[in-house]
């Protein structure tokens, strides 16, 4: 059965060409968007599909604006910084911001400006456009004719990650990031929902296509992500005089205020020391956590530690370490998949890890939050879930303890006390948290509590730099950077300082 997608079938799936390399003619969005096909303004129920897929995409899905983004000022600045004349004409940008197939594959209605259009994901329609509307058409037949199997989690993950993480052929390098490109992030279930989905899994969908349980889907996404991460590391980790590709490392390991001393030891970080960049391992770490939390074994964790250690030693050892990790991953994945039906066990492991302060880094917490969402969707306390994402709203003002508390709370747990054997975070807890801000008025009164009725403790001069510890109804609790004084001030009279 097609739907029984174990890792056994992974080989076949990953071997399937991504739409960008399918060699088929991409006919263009217009060939799908007729109002009687997929361009209906409202959902219809005459056929298995909603028929308003185009409208959902063009109105709500940012993929439809991916090309347009290249025209904005930020993109132009990035292009300038990279020495590219026009972002919207450069393959390096278009490869992800459009359906950048070779000219020969561009059909009658094809427009690069459509961004990530229908066929960028569903594959060139050259061979299936006509047949796919016939009564005798089957999904398998369509796939056979070149349609990309987006309903299969691993295939979809591979497709999405080709841009949202990168491939050996296209990758948002540290140079691109340095030029101004925003940080990338991905989790299959969350991003599928956020897109937003332009299909509904209902009876006729199930009839035609395989449907993975969310936990399964999440796990598949995670595994493919992990594998892809490793593949990226293998491909891009340089040896020699130059620096390794820095985008492979955890952004926030380096990118934070000098006042915000975040480093801490972790179970997976091996011999990496304070001040050293460390490979971005959030997905791998998540698998390691699951392995230990659910399966009770540590082979991925061990291999991950070895990878980090190897990252200090050079390319050769690193390559060896990635190979080992890949094997561990495969083994863990097979076992985890067996447990995927019991999504509770998976989520429990995540919440426990959160309570144990294992998601200190922003990227880790972000993965954990998205995982939690995917696993508890529909059953979770909405407010608690909101709180998790609120804690992750801004990577720059991210406070690990807040995120950890919110995540733990979502699982009905409490964060373990400091110093109880968990990774030490004293310094971070005391000094690390808090956005930086500056007094924007000539003189700012500092009060004992949030409210005009509170006693005035003193005043701060214009330009005084502050750390914001807490916000409450228009008031912020602040302290000076040397922590010499503190109190409550009106939030609107201070301005955030970006780091």
């Amino acid at each position, binding site marked *: 059965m097609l739907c029984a997608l174990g890792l056994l079938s992974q080989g076949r799936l990953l071997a399937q060409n991504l739409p960008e390399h399918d060699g088929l003619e991409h006919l263009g969005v217009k060939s799908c968007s*007729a109002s*009687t096909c997929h361009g209906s303004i409202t959902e219809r129920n005459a056929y298995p599909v909603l028929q308003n897929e185009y409208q959902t995409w063009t109105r709500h899905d940012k993929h439809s604006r991916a090309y347009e983004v290249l025209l904005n000022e930020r993109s132009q600045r990035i292009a300038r910084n990279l020495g590219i004349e026009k972002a919207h004409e450069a393959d390096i940008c278009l490869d992800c911001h459009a359906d950048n197939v070779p000219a020969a594959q561009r059909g009658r209605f094809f427009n690069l400006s459509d961004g990530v259009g229908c066929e960028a994901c569903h594959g060139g329609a050259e061979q299936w*456009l006509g047949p796919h509307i016939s009564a005798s058409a089957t999904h398998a037949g369509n796939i056979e004719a070149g349609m990309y199997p987006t309903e299969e989690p691993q295939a979809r993950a591979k497709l999405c990650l080709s841009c949202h993480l990168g491939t050996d052929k296209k990758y948002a390098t540290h140079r691109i990031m340095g030029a101004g490109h925003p940080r990338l992030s991905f989790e299959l279930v969350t991003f599928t929902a956020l897109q937003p989905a332009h299909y509904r899994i209902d009876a006729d969908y199930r009839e035609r296509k395989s449907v993975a349980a969310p936990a399964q889907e999440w796990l598949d996404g995670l595994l493919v992500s992990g594998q892809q991460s490793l593949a990226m590391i293998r491909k891009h980790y340089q040896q020699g005089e130059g620096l390794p590709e820095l985008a492979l490392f955890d952004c926030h390991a380096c990118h934070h205020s000098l006042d915000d001393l975040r480093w801490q030891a972790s179970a997976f970080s091996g011999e990496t020391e304070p001040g050293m960049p460390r490979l971005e391992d959030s997905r791998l770490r998540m698998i390691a956590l699951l392995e230990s939390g659910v399966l009770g074994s540590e082979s991925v964790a061990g291999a991950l530690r070895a990878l980090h250690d190897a990252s200090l030693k050079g390319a050769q050892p690193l390559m060896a370490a990635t190979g080992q990790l890949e094997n561990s991953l495969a083994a863990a994945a097979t076992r985890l998949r067996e447990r995927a039906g019991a999504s509770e066990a998976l989520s429990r492991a995540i919440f426990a890890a959160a309570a144990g302060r294992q998601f200190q880094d922003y990227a880790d917490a972000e993965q954990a939050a998205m995982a939690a969402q995917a696993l508890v969707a529909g059953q979770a306390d909405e407010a608690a879930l909101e709180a998790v994402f609120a804690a992750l709203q801004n990577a720059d003002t991210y406070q690990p303890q807040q995120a950890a508390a919110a995540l733990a709370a979502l699982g009905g747990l409490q964060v373990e006390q400091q110093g109880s054997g968990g990774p030490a975070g004293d310094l971070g807890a005391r000094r690390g948290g808090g956005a930086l801000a500056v007094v924007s008025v000539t003189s700012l009164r500092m009060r004992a509590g949030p409210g005009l009725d509170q006693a005035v403790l003193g005043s701060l001069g214009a330009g005084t730099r502050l750390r914001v510890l807490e916000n409450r109804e228009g008031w912020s609790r602040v302290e000076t950077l040397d922590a010499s004084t503190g109190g409550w001030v009106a939030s609107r009279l201070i301005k955030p300082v970006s780091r």
Partner: protein
Amino acid sequence: MMRLELRHVWFPIAALCAWPGLLLAAEGEVPRDIEYPHYPPAPYTQTAAEAAAKSAGCIDCHTASDAATMHRSETVVLGCTDCHGGDASIRVEHAYSHHSPEYMAKLDAAHVQPRYPKTWHYPHSENPKHSYTLLNKESPEYVRFVNPSDYRVAQEACGACHGPIIKAATRSIMATGAMLFGGAAYNNGILPFKNYILGEAYTRDGEAAILEGPVQEDADAQTAVNGILPKLYPFPPWETLKPGDIFRVFERGGRNLTNLFPETGIPNSLGLLQRIEEPGRPDIRQSNRGPGTGGRISVPVLNMHKTRLNDPLMWFLGTNDQPGDFRTSGCGACHVVYANDRDPRHSGQYAAAGHRGLTQTTDPTIARDKSGHPLQHVFTTAIPTAQCMSCHMHQPNMFVNTYLGYTMWDYESDAPFMWPEEQRYPDHDEMRKILDRNPEGAVVRGKWADLEFLENVWDLNPKLNDTQFADYHGHGWNFRAIFKRDRKGNLLDAAGQQVSNDDPEKFSKAVHMSSVHLDKGMHCVDCHFAQDSHGTGHLYGEVALAVEIDCKDCHGSASSYPNLRTSGPAAPPAGNDLRALRNSDGRRRFEWVDGKLIQRSVLDPSKEWEMSLVKDSVMPGNPDFNEKAARAKLMKGDPNEQRWSVHFEESDLAHKDSEIECYTCHTSWTTSCAGCHLPIEANWKTERHHYEGGISRNYATYNPQVVRDQMFMLGRRGDRKGGKIAPVRSSSALVLSSTNANRERIYIQQPPVAASGYSSQALNPHFPHTVRKTETKECEDCHLSKDNDNNAIMAQLLLLGTNFTNFIGFNAWVGGSGHVEAVPVTEWTEPQAVIGSYLHRYAYPDYYQAHMGRDQRLPEAFEHGSGPVECLQLRAEYLYVAEGKKGFRVYDVASVANKGFSQRIITAPFSPLGHDTHVGTKDASCVVLPANQPVHPARNEGELMRDVNKEQPFHPIYNYALVTDRQEGLILVDINTLSDGELRNNYLERAATYNPGNALAGARYLALAGHIAYITTSQGLAVVNLDQPLAPRLETILPLKGAHSAAVQFRYLFVTDASGMRVFDITNLTNPAEIEAARIPLADARRIYLSRTYAFVAAGREGLVIVDIEKPEQPSIYEKFDADGRLRDTNDVVIGSTNASLFAYVADGASGLNVVQLTAPDTQPNFYGFSPEPKPQLVAWRETQSPALALSRGLERDRGVDETGGQIAVFGRLGSRPLTYPEMRRLYVDAAGRPWYVENLPQDKKQVGQSNE
């Protein structure tokens, strides 16, 4: 399955059908009885092989096609018979002679057979001409064969994929025509429902259908809030509808015209029973048979059924006879392009295909030389404006000519090119043939009666002097171009500089006032997308309610950029997303690129333009900043400050988006069809164009009278459309005539009364589609100008009327010292040219020569003895007369043009015991009717009018005639019984007499400003407030010596007295203040008549004095005109328009009635101006029985409301209305009542500067 044996059926019938003359909609052809096989609907999906089998035999002959499935998309898999039906298994294996019986047999067997082969000219494929209801009579199988997209069968051919859209389209206003049926029925007093109930639709079998909207729950609320109608009913046949009119001839009783109406079935072969004339009955009334007999019909209803007004609409084929009329029915009416217009601005890439409806198909079987074929066998969304114009060429049908910069031609401009040198005397057969194509009565005498001439009118343009014509001729009409002109009518170029009338290049130098959207290259479909064309699926009665697009959807507002979501009345709650639209090349139709909003053309996707963004235009520093735009949009609503700034709150602005439509200012001109004559002729047998068809008696031509393009008027839209201030047009106000079977004119030129009791001289807010960037409305178009030179403009703006387009009609009504007299001054046939006029010279050269041979004397007059008549007024079929010691009398003049009458003006239609319209007064000097348009206030009462139709109540003054009496002062007489259709209650009595302390002694004349009366008396000028008409209040008396007459124009009152003409400021209506510097000394000033920027003074021995009053406070004599000495005792003058020309009718004690042409294309090339300079020339005259003293004013066709806000004329569309008195005042006085002034170009810039930042 039955297979038709064709040779047995077809040939004998063909012989039977040798019918002489025209075959219209299967009239005369006996239908064949054919049993059809079942042709299954086209499937949603099938294999290519299955589809190929359904085309196999077809493509044996139709070897090539432009798009085999009509769709350019490869995903559509269809065979020929899926859509057309027929038998694709019939193969033509080898070449036959196309005339051989074998070939014909195969052709017949393969093709679906018509029931009416002759009418369809089977087997030829071009659309038949004037087919109309043929589609209702033909079998649905054959209709599907000819046009699978016809709405009767479209569900079968197209429904598998397009089902919901077909449903919506058949309910859309383009198919139902509900706005015309409903509007015409309401405005002309036929049905009292402003939520319309009539709409056209048919079943598959061509039967009249009731349409139900998809939502029936809470229907009243849906209607009240969204204008969504629950149900539309078929339009009843005209024969069975009772006349809505209150004309005398429709009153009960009277003699029967028995010889014409044989009483079949009544045991009285000679009809003697009906011929008994009972004493005391009116002389001539209707047959005692029902509606539809003896002219007992409603002319507008007859018109809607039989005259080419808007029809054919979507349910029928185009008439396929002349450029602009080639198209099919149903979906293909829009989506299949025909060659209609050679102008690329109208036709885009199709212009090269010509305008004769010829095809360019690759199908070898389609005749290339026969009109009525589509260009290609292919659907398109690239629909050119020219296609839309095949329906939208007429005012009640969204007059889209304006978008193209054209309006209806008036028969006068460039007359020498358009009328034959030899007068035409077409016989009835010839006339019938021409009128089937073009319903204008005038056409039969014009050169454009000839199709070939019509097709080439566009080519005349280089030679023309007065105007330029369009290349489309829907309905056979001609359309003239509008050029930028100043108020005097001088042509202007883009920079506002005058272009000389002698300049041979003048029409390329002057600005052609097409919409800026057209100039950009836009077609209708570039604004009105799928939903506007297909409808929402709901039923609507008003066009604007069914529109989803709004200006701001693409242009944004002063405060925000456009969000590209539709927001018009028919838009879904969050709007449709225009960014989702894609053109035929697959690209987005709208796209933001680099902060610029780009739109790409639907017709030519390679053509794109940048959208003007309102926010940019008002933002100082922006490259697109436009100070005038910013000033207008950001002006604070404080007239004394007149400051503007981007920092003001929207709620403080003068021109709030919530209060005023964008196009109120962004309109370069509006069309106003001030009057249309529908003269019914009982003897004319014609075909019904709708429903069951059929030929019957009675026909009315359709005759636009005065079409002006420089009238700018304001009113309010109904709440359902936002209740904003919008431009108002005069919308096809009718006057009706009827010639019965004896060729007796039983009523002439009668305006109906609307269902709401208001006059049917209908007005309605509309979007004129004439948006331009430079030629917009400016400050001085709606507010007092600093030079104070726009008093007439303001009068026009507020719908107070300007006495310029007034309709004098067939007769001039003259009061003499001992008679009232009707003098026919025009031809009766169309065009109703004023005898002796410019138009007369060209349209009727023989008659004109005869007239000149009579030394310009008018040949006829009809009179009745009377007292001395210094005042008389015609309204409806009554003449209201003040005749001195004989008091006040209302004459019955219904039969004034009836040759069956010897005494055509009578005091009563029968015994005075049953009718007495005389009111004795001591010395009646004048009578004034608050409205000289027929109104009937009693119709405008009750819940239906007030709550459902949202009509404003009448002011009570409209119940009365106001009579001045030298001894008794002011007398009010209730005259409503004369307009209630009841013949037994016509006894007039005085309702009130008012002469407090004899203050009104010597009352001589009265002028009204709403309910304020200005009465000239022995003492001077008395101001009487008639807000409560039966309890008048004397406001003030201004002493004047020898006060004679008075006339009101907006803020000024003009009075003649012994010293000449005086001007009073009546900004405060009850307290006139004389402008002493404005006196014009005249020795013998008598009556005065104001027409736009001129005052016409009947100046006794000085003749006619024309005073320029453009600046009312600085009047000057423009000309004294005495017609070579004929005018030497000039008592009265009235002004009226006929076609494009302005006329003065002068009553002279010495020489009688004199008709003076004031402007004509040859004397005043600027005749299209708002107020061209008069060039008076006498064109006709007639002595009167006794010295002529007075004239009846013409029907005031542009007066919708009075000076105190009392509504007079019906407003089309629910909830719309003229401005109220306080709303009017807000445009020109401040809170304290002080006038304030504006300038188009400010001397000092009053922008609030940086200080506010």
